[in-house]
């Protein structure tokens, strides 16, 4: 029986505020609270709340036959807790049904997997803890930030105990192979690699509202027919959660589409399952090798959207250069800044490939984003130095006391 996995990526990055050089040394609040509250509450109102309610009603109706999967990072959980706690409540209700899977990811939606193994592990652990605390379930499947994956990242997650990982079904990795099967990782071949079917996923996110598309309007029946007609055992549709209500607003009919989808799928003799469930049911049909990092971004499906120019590389290396100092200070306020400074979005806004087109950036240009980020990072670095300097004499006197 062909399995359909629905994975929703929920991510609300914390936006940095406009931070001038003159603020350095004086102002240590780096976040734009107004923008963050607005974005969170808008997403809650237009997407999270109506979609959660819809999923709940379908789960009840189908009595165990409808399952979905969420990837929600720690920063997003914090944002929801601060600005829209009712979303977290509805998520908890969903978790209780047993039909909803929560996937492991990085706590800060960070790019740590590309530079620092120990930080990556720390983030994955922190995220697991947050999911267990919030939803009472433990993630078994891993999906890295922006679906970033390589053989090395697969090995790291396998070592952490995740025996299944979800990544992009990138054409240059697959070649003639189909994304609709379970594969084995190249290093640890016991790890199962699940692949996102980008065509069917992007049809929902980017084409659903597009009236110029020759398949418009997309009905649940037509979509189920495409899934039925595709070769393979597990069709993994992985989309940003904002597909429902934000990218495609309610009048587009996206919620009606979701409502009709379960009957259309089940009626064609297919089933829904979680990523974990599908990976258990289906055997790997081959080994998938991926020496260079891939992601779900752009045509290239690589990581150059975040680390593609000298601005991004400089900011990234300066950020991780502070790691030892953050560990030394080990103060919750500083750890929080360290967490949100690692968000992939910070580097995405510095990308030069957009050249004026909107990439959702709150900044005028990649240069503007870079200057703002570096001002904050510099102030953060100075504050860390001040903390360490303040700590030193204390520890020395302690040592002196011990010697006496």
């Amino acid at each position, binding site marked *: 029986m062909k399995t359909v996995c629905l994975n929703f990526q929920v991510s609300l990055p914390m936006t940095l505020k406009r931070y001038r*050089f003159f603020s*350095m040394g004086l102002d240590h609040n780096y976040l734009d609270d107004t923008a963050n509250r607005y974005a969170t509450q808008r997403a809650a109102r237009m997407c999270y709340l109506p979609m959660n309610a819809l999923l709940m009603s379908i789960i009840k109706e189908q009595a165990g036959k409808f399952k979905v999967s969420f990837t929600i990072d720690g920063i997003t959980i914090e944002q929801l807790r601060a600005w829209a706690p009712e979303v977290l409540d509805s998520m908890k209700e969903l978790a209780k049904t047993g039909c909803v899977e929560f996937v492991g990811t990085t706590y800060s939606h960070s790019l740590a997997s590309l530079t620092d193994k120990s930080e990556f592990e720390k983030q994955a652990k922190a995220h697991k803890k947050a999911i267990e605390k919030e939803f009472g379930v433990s993630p078994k499947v891993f999906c890295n930030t922006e679906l970033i994956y390589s053989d090395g990242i697969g090995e790291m997650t396998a070592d952490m105990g995740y025996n299944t990982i979800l990544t992009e079904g990138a054409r240059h990795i697959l070649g003639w192979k189909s994304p609709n099967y379970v594969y084995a990782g190249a290093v640890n071949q016991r790890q199962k690699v699940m692949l996102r079917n980008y065509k069917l996923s992007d049809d929902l996110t980017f084409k659903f509202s597009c009236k110029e598309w020759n398949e418009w309007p997309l009905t649940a029946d037509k979509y189920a027919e495409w899934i039925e007609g595709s070769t393979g055992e597990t069709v993994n549709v992985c989309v940003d959660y904002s597909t429902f209500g934000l990218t495609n607003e309610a009048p587009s009919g996206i919620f009606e589409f979701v409502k009709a989808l379960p009957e259309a799928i089940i009626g064609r003799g297919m089933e829904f399952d979680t990523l974990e469930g599908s990976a258990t049911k289906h055997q790997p049909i081959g080994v998938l090798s991926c020496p260079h990092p891939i992601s779900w971004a752009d045509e290239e499906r690589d990581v150059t959207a975040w680390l593609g120019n000298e*601005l991004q590389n400089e*900011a990234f*290396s300066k950020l991780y250069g502070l790691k030892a100092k953050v560990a030394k200070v080990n103060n919750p306020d500083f750890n929080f800044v360290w967490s949100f400074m690692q968000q992939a979005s910070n580097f995405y806004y510095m990308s030069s490939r957009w050249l004026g087109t909107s990439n959702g950036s709150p900044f005028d240009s990649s240069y503007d984003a870079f200057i703002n980020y*570096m001002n904050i990072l510099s102030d953060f670095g*100075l504050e860390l130095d001040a903390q360490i300097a303040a700590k030193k004499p204390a520890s020395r006197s302690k040592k002196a006391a011990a010697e006496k």
Partner: protein
Amino acid sequence: MRVLMFGWEFPPHIAGGLGTACYGLTRGLARNDVKVTFVVPRAHGDEDQRFTHIVNASDIETDFCRRDEYTKEIWENLSYISIDSNMVPYATPEEYFERREEWLKQRETSVVQDSWHQRYTFSGKYGANLMEEVQRYAMVAAEVAKAEAGNFDVIHAHDWLTYYAGIAAKNVSGKPLVVHIHATDFDRSGAINPDSPVYQIEKAGMSAADKVIAVSNLTRDICINKYGIDANKIVTVHNAVRFASNTPDYGERGVKQKIVTFLGRITFQKGPDYFVEAAAKVLKRLPDVHFVMAGNGDMFNHVIRRVAKLGIADRFHFTGFLKGDDVQKMFAMSDVYVMPSVSEPFGISPLEAMREGVPVIISKQSGVAEVLDYAVKVDYWDVDAMADAIYALVQYPALAGMFGRMGYDEVTGLKWNNAAAKVKDVYASVLNE
């Protein structure tokens, strides 16, 4: 003595040092009993008018039908000058692009028309249609000269943008013309291009003038050697600097580490590249010094990329264009000020820094180097010497203290009153001729 003065900008609406210098000069002239009528495109209404009488060029009506011979001649003489966007003298790129976008959409400057007369509205900002504005300004200048006839003895024009206006006013009124060279095309582009319309306007202005005032000997030499102007006609009057009598409280300084500042337009002329390279050299030895580049310009993005590439972005900060109090605040926060200009006719910014007791490093290729003793002078291209001087001023408090103290005394001795008295002498000399 009464002067009809043509400028392009006046505080608080300024894009660079020209407006500041004009303001200081008019104040100094007022103290020397010289009455100034300052013509500026688009007066905003909030200029300080205690010392000058500002005529808004946009308020002067130009009658198209009854053009007299002079304005007609100017219109005809200038109309062939093609609009060359590379010749924008100084403006932030934003202003430039905004103006250009607008211009590309409309293909003309906005002209306010009513049924009784035609009235030109100036953008008051530099843009791609600058040449057109220079022409129109000249036409209006002739009207101003007619309207103000009998109210002035001398015409004084600042920088090339107003030279045609000065010539037009001279033709209409028959009064002597003094042109004031604050910067030349040679400074801006680093070479003489005889085909450049700016060069031609500059040369025409200097030739038509009865006397030429240069802001430094450096500039005077350029006028003689590159423009072929008679040396006897050119007088050097160094700029001065005007300070508010009380310095405001800028609040607590956030960064405790040493701050080395560059403040100015980020363009080829100002040598921002050399500052970056010197910063990288200093940071190799002293990783805790902070460098600030304040300003904006066409090399902004280039400089940011270079800073990122050198890996010093956590010690090298950008503020963007600073306005009003923020400029003085930036000087007050600095421990060392650097002006690495490739070619600077005068350069008023180091004086503002010295007024805050900040030791300065200036390039030998600047006019201000002629009047300062208590400033470190280096060749703009000598980044090793520049790095060396920064290191010394940051590391040795005795040296920095000496430069700060002596520099303060030196700079407070540079008075616009004295400069204005020299300008008044120039006026007297052309009136006697």
